[in-house]
């Protein structure tokens, strides 16, 4: 195990008025439990505003949870990192790295490629010798498939796909155990996305890094991850092995999400059959009971008042009337 979240919540206060009093809360993450094992790929899928990026930021310790517990495992010991990292800070920062969605924002335009990739190395004082450091950075560039003579170039000279490769090289520099990938390909051109996914998978196999892979792209999540979590309005509504969830989705939301993905066959046009009405509710004013009930085609009285728990053995679902 690398990391474990138990009933984690994250609420952001909404402040207004003269004294900036708290007027309400944005319930971005509501009760998420999740495990990341060594050498595994965990997929998180959901629509915009469902809290998946907040979840990523909780995991890399940018945010502190409002409630719940986060545990980090290292060399057989466990560390409670819910609030602060304390003594484990340096190890944790080395072990957990992140790749962001937009490679046009995540690289400092004033640093050249060498500076960008070697910055984590210098922060953690890995090499005393400049020459060794440079050799290592070159090695990293080779791993991500970039030419080693590009070290002195600046980010603006690269295309989106190449920039994402640079971001991957930087994330790999400290030999992490967990890489949090927040929509790493959605800002890239279609013809380039698959290259980056292949690269990430190759690196995963060779270096045995665990990935927490966040995406709204169901096809990609199915292909890449072993275990997936479907998030709706800050809650896990369905969880299980990727093959189970995709072959037998149980939650009506998962089902409509899958049906909404356009097909690739003009002979079988399927979007016309979709009956999902409405839009995701706001996390400021979540609906009572099951968060999906206002949009759910199978809503019954119970769904309006009682929030379903995430139940099940290996394949879990939070629904009073799962589609079995």
């Amino acid at each position, binding site marked *: 195990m690398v990391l474990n979240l138990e009933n984690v919540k994250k609420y952001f206060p909404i402040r207004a008025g003269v004294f900036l009093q708290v007027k309400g809360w944005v319930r971005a993450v509501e009760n998420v439990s999740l495990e990341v094992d060594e050498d595994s790929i965990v997929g998180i899928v959901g629509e915009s505003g469902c809290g998946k990026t907040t979840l990523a930021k909780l995991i890399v310790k940018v945010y502190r949870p409002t409630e719940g517990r986060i545990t980090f495992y290292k060399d057989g010991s466990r560390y409670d990192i819910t609030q602060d990292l304390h003594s484990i800070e340096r190890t944790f920062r080395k072990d957990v790295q992140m790749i962001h969605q937009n490679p046009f924002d995540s690289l400092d335009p004033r640093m050249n490629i060498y500076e960008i990739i070697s910055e984590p190395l210098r922060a953690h004082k890995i090499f005393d010798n400049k020459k060794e450091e440079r050799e290592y950075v070159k090695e990293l560039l080779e791993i991500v498939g970039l030419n080693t003579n590009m070290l002195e170039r600046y980010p603006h000279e690269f*295309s989106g796909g190449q920039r994402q490769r640079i971001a991957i090289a930087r994330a790999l520099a400290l030999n992490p155990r967990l890489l949090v990938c927040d929509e790493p390909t959605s800002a890239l051109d*279609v013809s380039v996305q*698959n290259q980056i996914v292949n690269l990430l998978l190759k690196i995963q196999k060779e270096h045995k890094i665990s990935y927490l892979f966040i995406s709204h792209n169901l096809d990609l999540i199915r292909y890449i991850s072993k275990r997936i979590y479907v998030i709706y309005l800050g809650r896990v509504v369905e969880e299980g092995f990727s093959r189970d969830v995709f072959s037998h989705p149980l939650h009506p939301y998962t089902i409509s999400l899958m049906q909404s993905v356009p097909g690739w066959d003009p002979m079988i046009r399927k*979007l016309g059959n979709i009956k999902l009405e409405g839009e995701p509710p706001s996390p400021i004013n979540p609906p009572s009971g099951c968060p999906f009930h206002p949009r759910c085609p199978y809503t019954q009285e119970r769904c309006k008042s009682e929030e379903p728990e995430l139940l099940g053995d290996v394949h879990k679902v939070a629904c009073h009337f799962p589609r079995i």
Partner: protein
Amino acid sequence: MSTENSTAAINKKIFEVSDLKVHFTTSEGVVKAVDGISFHLNEQETLAIVGESGCGKSVTAQTIMGLIKSPPAKIIGTIKFKGENILGSDLVREYRGKKITMVFQEPMASFDPLYTIGYQMTEVIQKHMKMSSSASKDLAMLMLKKVHIPDAERRLNEYPHQMSGGMLQRIMIAISLVTNPEILIADEPTTALDVTIQAQILNLVAELKSEFKTSTIFITHDLGIVSEIADRVVVMYAGKIVEQGTVYGIFKSSLHPYTQGLLKSKIRETKSGEELPYIPGFVPTSYEIPSGCPFHPRCNYAMEICKSEFPKERLIEDRLVSCHLYSQDQ
């Protein structure tokens, strides 16, 4: 979703672009955003223009709408609407927003945040249809109902920030159809939206299209969407059209290596553990478009001639394709 439409499509050209070039002179050289493209739109059909960033698909749309100023841009070619050339003529002012309308990619950026939805809708109606303010308000309300916005009366008095992206895009579609246009150009209208909302919007466009009998140009990078809505497809790469034909033809047996690559890169059919199919290399920036066929550095079939000469367009069955692979055997 528009299958019944496509079979009924009347093959009558309503709109024709011939040898259109849009070049911009910048301090770093000439950017050939659109470089000699020709295509047409038939009455009542949906034509999809597919391509990646920088391929010139949005510039094409903006040129059609007369939104690109010349000079500084250099625009050559003809754009014929019902037989009349509207490129560079004053006619475009008359047609734009009335007979030819457009829906943009970012619904949040398409509205003025300082005015109510009602104001922005009636402004268009009064400008193009010469209606009284109360009649135009009624029409605006009717249109909001047509795009399934609940509580239309209240919504008319609200501001753009009070709506979600999906709702704004519905309103944008309502505005673009209120003048009963003959051509609707939709530039990536669902890219900024979630999949479930995207499905709703695509259904809405199809539904209204059959009601209003509008011919549609749909610009997208997503082949999934193309397969769902298009009758015919134009594939663009680096300012050129590399292949065009019916949606069935292209999805069944694409001819150009770029189209083939795009179609193959579908993740859904790859098993976990297998490598995803991909197109090598990267999309060229507009400043350094490769010579000859711009796709040659990424093409598995590249030959010597591809480096120097852009292939002529050839008609193969239902398809127009620009590739040297098909030059010899004709």
